[in-house]
């Protein structure tokens, strides 16, 4: 993911300055240069990048840097806050016209995914309990109408089209929807170039004729610098109410999101994240910001843990971890808790810093393999479980026999367990264990701490950072982090004292 680069750069920057009390203007310039590079690599338009950096500098204006004991973290904090600001600004809430139907017009370049989006949007409204109606006004591309008809029949939504000019089709489509008593009409238009004056005038006519309540620009998430020019021209012609980003699944580049928003000042309203009709939902700026922070999924993971684990076991675990005691019995009970939470693959997906290979490996872990681990531990005596150092060669052979596994498997488990114990000791001592996998997770969480001006070096800082995350205080819901304090779902981190 492209924002990984940004996160990584910031992380590097943060660690290089962590110990320093003062930050020189050169340091700052270098850091902002890195941010610039990361944004450009993410296809954010140059002008928007400049605006972003100016805003970050403004945030750092005055004596913020000189007053702070941790100036490096102040910089990171400013960058993150600005990201959340840009992504989370003025989210659009869909309201329905008091006199139905609510008319929605889709426009965009060729190949942005308008037709598919029209169907997905209809499907979304259907899921909201509405009665959508599709109007195929793309008479340009061969078989575009046919495509919408097929998609319409897949999702059970009627599609209107006829052989006329697009403006007339749109007008009659809306009239037909009104006659049929449908409450949402989605008009698909032909892809057009922003410099094609005739076609732009045509879509302007469609808009004037049907007076849509919402006009969305459909934009491909992998669009480069051109995104702004496109967005601006369409905005000038149509007065856009928002943007729909498609193909966000490719590798989740968000550059076009920032660019379009930066130029037209309109939010991304929906995002399409896959080929299936259902892979389409409201765009959550807070979640996107969390992804950039690289810790949104940690929140889900923690909430998942809270929901599924026994409170007693949790409390017990925490106290044991704090005291640095960790036995194979603890490991077993934890593993059982983990298994309650669902499949390994699913859980690994929630963890940040997990590589693709690890995820695939986790997907391949089946219950049998977990049973095997359980069998190995169960084949040990109480004494062995309490103190695995006494397990010598003959005991290993016995355990392998007893569990129906092999000595190497037993060895491996014991080695891993020893490492795990070390980590636990480190954690109890207030240090971040520096182990691949877990280490990454800790780093990511710690980076969040840095973002909010927290202390990177201790468990307390990490935990405080998580608690300070927007929505972290709110009782867990399945919907991910939410901020109930503010209306409109605007997500801005509470400022640190």
């Amino acid at each position, binding site marked *: 993911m492209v924002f990984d680069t940004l996160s990584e750069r910031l992380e590097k920057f943060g660690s290089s300055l962590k110990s320093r009390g003062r930050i020189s203007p050169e340091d700052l310039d270098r850091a902002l240069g890195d941010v610039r590079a990361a944004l450009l690599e993410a296809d954010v338009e140059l002008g*928007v990048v400049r605006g972003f950096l100016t805003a970050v500098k403004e945030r750092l204006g005055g004596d913020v840097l000189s007053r702070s004991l941790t100036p490096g973290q102040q910089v990171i904090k400013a960058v993150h806050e600005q990201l959340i600001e840009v992504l989370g600004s003025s989210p659009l809430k869909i309201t329905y016209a008091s006199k139905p139907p609510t008319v929605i017009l889709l426009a965009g370049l060729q190949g942005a995914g308008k037709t598919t989006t029209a169907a997905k949007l209809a499907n979304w409204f259907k899921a909201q309990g509405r009665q959508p109606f599709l109007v195929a006004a793309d008479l340009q591309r061969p078989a575009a109408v046919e495509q919408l008809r097929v998609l319409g029949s897949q999702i059970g939504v009627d599609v209107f089209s006829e052989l006329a000019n697009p403006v007339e089709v749109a007008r009659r489509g809306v009239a037909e929807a009104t006659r049929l008593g449908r409450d949402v009409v989605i008009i698909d238009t032909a892809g057009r170039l922003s410099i094609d004056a005739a076609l732009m005038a045509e879509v302007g006519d469609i808009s004037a004729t049907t007076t849509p309540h919402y006009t969305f620009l459909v934009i491909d998430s992998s669009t*480069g610098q051109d995104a702004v020019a496109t967005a601006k021209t369409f905005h000038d012609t149509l007065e856009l109410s928002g943007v729909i980003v498609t193909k966000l699944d490719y590798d989740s580049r968000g550059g076009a999101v920032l660019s379009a928003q930066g130029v037209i000042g309109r939010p991304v309203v929906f995002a399409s994240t896959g080929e299936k009709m259902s892979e389409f939902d409201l765009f959550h700026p807070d979640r996107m910001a969390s992804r950039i922070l690289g810790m949104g999924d940690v929140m889900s993971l923690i909430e998942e843990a809270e929901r599924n684990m026994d409170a007693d076991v949790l409390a017990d675990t925490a106290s044991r971890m704090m005291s640095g005691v960790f036995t194979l019995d603890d490991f077993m009970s934890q593993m059982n808790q983990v298994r309650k939470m669902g499949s390994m693959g699913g859980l690994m997906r929630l963890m940040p810093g997990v590589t693709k290979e690890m995820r695939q490996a986790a997907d391949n872990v089946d219950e049998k393999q977990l049973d095997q681990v359980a069998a190995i531990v169960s084949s040990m005596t109480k004494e062995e479980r309490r103190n695995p150092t006494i397990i010598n060669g003959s005991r290993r052979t016995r355990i392998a026999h007893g569990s129906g596994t092999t000595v190497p498997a037993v060895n491996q488990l014991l080695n891993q367990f020893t490492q795990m114990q070390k980590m636990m000791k480190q954690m109890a001592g207030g240090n971040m264990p520096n182990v691949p996998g877990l280490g990454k997770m800790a780093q990511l969480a710690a980076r969040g701490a840095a973002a909010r001006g927290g202390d990177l070096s201790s468990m307390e800082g990490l935990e405080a950072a998580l608690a300070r995350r927007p929505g972290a205080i709110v009782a867990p819901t399945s919907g991910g982090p939410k901020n109930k304090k503010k209306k409109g779902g605007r997500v801005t981190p509470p400022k640190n004292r």
Partner: protein
Amino acid sequence: MIALVVVATVALLFAAFIAVRRRQTRVARESLPSTRAAMPSVLVHDIAARPDLDALDETLGSRLSSSRSVFDRVRSLGTGTLTQEQLDTVEEVLLRSDVGLPTTTSIVELLRRDGAPEGVAAAVRSALRSSLTSASRELSTAVEAGRVPVWLFVGVNGVGKTTTIGKIATRRVAAGSKVVLAAGDTFRAAAAEQLSLWGERSGADVVRANEGADPSSVVHDAVERAFARGADLVLADTAGRRHTSSNLLDELSKVRRVADRAPGQVTETLMVLDATTGQNALAQAREFLAAAQVTGIVLTKLDGTARGGIVVAIEHGLGIPVKLIGIGEGPEDLVVFDPDSFVDALLEA
């Protein structure tokens, strides 16, 4: 495997630990007032006009020539060292053409080191020109005796694969070739209809199957039919696919393997690329190259405001030549790529 379980368990433990601590501190934190940071209002930007490199030379030239001797006037044609301002302008022009940061940086460094003896615009032109690959841009139909050449079209969704095939078919048929189209996009609704309409328009034969059919079998059937009827060329469409999905890339590899089996022979695998695509195109090219041995790029939608600068990075980094470019809606608007005019268009203000 065990290692993975352990890592997962530890990580979850860690999560559980935080969960507990959060629960403990929740009450205390809930009473904290939250203040919002003051928001700078820089969200809406204007798009600045793109600077013109030629203008850069003119101002420099006129500045020098107005005040100096003949000797200086000769020097004013170019410059030994560029000012930071000039370098910044060059950088801006390249970045805004989607050339990408690494390539841009290397060109700027080159200019910083060598200066621009022939003028800034010329120096940038030649740097860009030498970044482009020297590989052949010819489209090949050379096959072993008794086989039919197949051109396979690949790419992500919405780049214009089907349309490109339609245009090539129209031109080839008009030039007297017998062309068979394989509707290998069995995923997108009505993709086969779209290709069939192109078939009707162009007079090419279309082989299609039902939606959801195996694309390899469609391509196989098309090759068989082309062979049986003595056709000159098979143009095989494929469904747009993410370059990040290994399953879909495997499927594509299979389509290519099947198409390359006698009597078919894949002579070109063309990756269709939308000119508006940004830095992501490099990743696309890399994956498609690995999965389907891409031999060339068709850069579509160059008639818009996008400049398609990313192909410089693709040609430079991966050595895949751009073979065709789409500069308009009609079949005649799909033209052979000319590096010189491309570079000129890239740098035009």
